[in-house]
């Protein structure tokens, strides 16, 4: 992404250090107005630290942060969090237990000296929006996890901040509630139409909620793209592996067989794999990633000649909606996940096939 002064948030060459540890090492990205961007990565990758730096809760070492074109951080400049006009939903919810639900939500409005009558109206409509309309007078100390989550949400958007930041807001909920809230959050995002930056380590959450995803590891950005781009065309082994399970296949280039922009690799054991480069460059050796769900499995040899191989089922693991097969293929193991109809047994011979566009060339 280019550094864009018109963006809602622009982060440039951000470096954040804790003592001797460098948590974020040179991160650059921007968030467009109205966009929902997610920072995705394993724990310790610097995503939360980056978010907190945008919020103003961490002081970076170097780099630049702009909000609506205004410089809020650069060496020598540090606008405190309370004057950046952002808002944030915390992982712990951070609901004040000594206040009522109403007072919690009204806080940001009262800070801004909004007239009490307007406070009442806006808090009520915010509580309605998160479906807590009748809980206003309840003490915040007596709320369930899901309710706290909703209060935190209402409190964060009630004063119409320019950007809403989310720090793993769903990670403390149980799986079922999390799936529910994910849908609700998306719905809410659409209704209030606010720019948001979301941090999570949960792939499904990221894919569901974001317009664009920034995948991070060890304080650097591995890939930036739309959900589909990240999922279908991972840039390197880390992203391929982190964003859903993938088989990695290494091989020597067979330039003699390449045509129509396809890349062809020959594995050490001799299998030929046709794949797509997506504008990436490959050397004499290269690596493909193939999602386990993109591989097809069948008893009969499918039509066509590209990327069809014979294999044998070594182990079958039933996973509910999907069944995962570990196959002996080309002197190694390859993993396929497919829906559970007409299951193959362990030891059965089978044919594995994949469309070349799903064999994604990785950068190394």
């Amino acid at each position, binding site marked *: 992404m280019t550094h864009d002064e018109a963006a809602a948030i622009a982060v440039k060459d951000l470096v954040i250090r804790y003592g001797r540890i460098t948590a974020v090492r040179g991160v650059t990205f921007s968030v467009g107005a109205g966009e929902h961007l997610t920072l995705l990565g394993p724990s310790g990758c610097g995503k939360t630290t980056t978010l907190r730096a945008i919020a103003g809760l961490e002081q970076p070492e170097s780099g630049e942060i702009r909000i609506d074109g*205004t*410089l809020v951080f650069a060496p020598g400049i540090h606008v405190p969090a*309370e004057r950046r006009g952002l808002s944030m939903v*915390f*992982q*712990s919810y951070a609901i004040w*237990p000594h206040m009522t639900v109403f007072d919690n939500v009204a*806080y940001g409005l009262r800070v801004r000296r909004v007239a009490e009558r307007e406070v009442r109206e806006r808090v009520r409509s915010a509580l309605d929006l998160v479906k807590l309309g009748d809980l206003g007078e309840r003490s915040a100390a007596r709320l369930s996890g899901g309710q706290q989550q909703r209060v935190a949400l209402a409190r964060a958007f009630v004063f119409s901040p320019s950007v809403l*930041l989310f720090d793993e807001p769903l990670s403390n909920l149980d799986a079922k509630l999390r799936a529910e809230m994910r849908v609700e959050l998306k719905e809410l995002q659409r209704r209030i139409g606010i720019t948001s930056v979301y941090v999570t380590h949960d792939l499904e959450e990221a894919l569901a909620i974001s317009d664009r995803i920034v995948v991070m590891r060890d304080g650097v950005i591995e890939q930036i793209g739309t959900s589909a781009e990240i999922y279908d065309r991972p840039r390197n082994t880390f992203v391929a592996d982190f964003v859903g399970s993938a088989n990695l296949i290494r091989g020597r280039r067979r330039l003699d067989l390449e045509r129509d922009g396809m890349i062809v690799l020959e594995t050490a054991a001799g299998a030929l794999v046709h794949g797509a480069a997506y504008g990436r460059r490959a050397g004499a050796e290269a690596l493909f990633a193939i999602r386990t769900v993109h591989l097809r499995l069948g008893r009969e040899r499918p039509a066509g000649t590209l990327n069809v191989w014979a294999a044998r089922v070594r182990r079958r693991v039933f996973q509910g909606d999907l069944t995962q097969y570990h196959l002996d293929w080309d002197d190694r193991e390859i993993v396929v996940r497919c829906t559970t109809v007409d299951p193959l047994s362990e030891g059965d011979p089978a044919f594995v096939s994949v469309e070349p566009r799903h064999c994604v060339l990785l950068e190394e």
Partner: protein
Amino acid sequence: MERVRRPRSAWPGPRLISVLVGGVAAAFVLYPIGFLIQASLSVGDPQARPPEAYGLENFTDLPRYAHIFWNTLVVAVVATVLAIGFGFVMGWILSRTNVPGRGVLEQFMALPYYVTPLMGALAWSLIGSPSGGFLNQVWRALGGEGHLIDMNTPYGIAWVMALFEGSVAFVMIGAVMKSMDPSLEEASQVLGAGRARTMLRITLPLVLPGVLGAAIFVFAEMLGSFSAALVLGLPSRFYVVTTAMYQLISQYPPRFPTAAAMGVCLSAVMFAMVYVYRRIVSARSYVTITGKAYRPRAMNVGRLRFVLLGVCLGYLGIAVVLPLITIVYASFQRLATAFPRADNFTLANYATALSLDAVRSALWNSLVLGFGTASIGILLMGFLSWMIYRSRLPGAGVIEYLLMFPQAVPRLVFAFGMLWAWLIFPIPIYGTLWLLLIAYLTVFLPLGLRTISGVMLQIDRTLEESAQMCGASWGYRMRTVTMPLLRPGLVAAWLLLFIASVRELGASILLMGPKAKVITPAIVESWFSTSTELTAAMALIQTLAVAAALALLFAVARRATQLPGE
């Protein structure tokens, strides 16, 4: 054009204030200690200030006082062993057995702490002084010879201190026993070890570091204890380091440098102790306290539990009830005696105590000082603990260490440093209540900081950060979020500071001026110069005044804090 919002007041403001307040508080701690060390190195005329010459003679001279150090060691060792014994037994009974009334008993175990060593010493002196002690009177009436017990001995001092510190040891050891994961013991039993073997091989090794930590902590406190050794030791000319220092300072001519050298040595030893204690405690917290919530299994001890209940009640009786009854009893007599006679009862002691201007003004001064210390203290210490544990200010750790320093320095020794430090201070506060206020605020820093930070560390940092994200300035979020959440800690700290200030002796006895007396030193003076009975009355009046002040404050505070929505 770039729109640049430059940080104005909000960010560097608290930072600057933090540096200032932290620095000043640290200076208040270090300033007297500097003077203490200077005094200990003065080898010229002992009265000269600043010293005429410097040298180590005061330290090399100390072996002449070897017996005093030996006395201190004997008292501290005996008292520590006894106190840990009390604490261990009570801790085990109340956290690991099904003794009846556990919950209530646990609350009562704090009471011995509120019967201060001074009260304990006065009471036990009445009970067990060799000539007039009540117990010895009874002994002689029954035909015994001489005396049954003698409290004016090292063992008497150790006994009184142990009853007091037993409550501290109980809290520390009880906490360790409670935080122990019962599955560790269950695992041993599942693997076939019997109850005794499990106790010996699993339970004991696990609680041992905690017990050791408590022992070191109590031992360090004993080394610096003053009041019991003064009341019980002075009549028989038995001195420990603190009382010897007091003697050297208050005799004529005073021998300040020698006293200072003693104080420096004592503090050095206590400092090492506290250091070791903190090491043990921090190492232990990784082992037994796993952060999981569990209730340790209470062992069913059958009928033995009534015996154990008796043990608990026995300790409370000896440490709380007996001393209080003794003092009440003595305060209503013309001449304290074990055998009640109708014509011996009188209210005259109270009438005298309350009519003496010196007592009245001392009591009033103490209450005012207590109020001032507690009120200023919670603001100051609340801010300091916020700064240490929340602000992420560089150097906060160093400041914490400095502020905890008074913990390792006996209050008498600290006050001695202050005596010198503030005598030469350009603002004339020496001999006024202001000096005492500064002294209390300084010596009680660790007490207040520990109480408040205990609560502060339980408050999740994001509660403040979310207020910040809502746009609240530092002052606004302090007022609406941090302070209200901290309120239990602040209230507890206020009460502790108030009680501790009103009952303070070691610092007050050196620092109070003739025109600005406070009550506890006045009680000690009365003990040595007027009658026992009058002193008993004064001690009770002090206790009642503290209780009344607290009751009044509670009533006022409850009304003031009943906010809508709560």
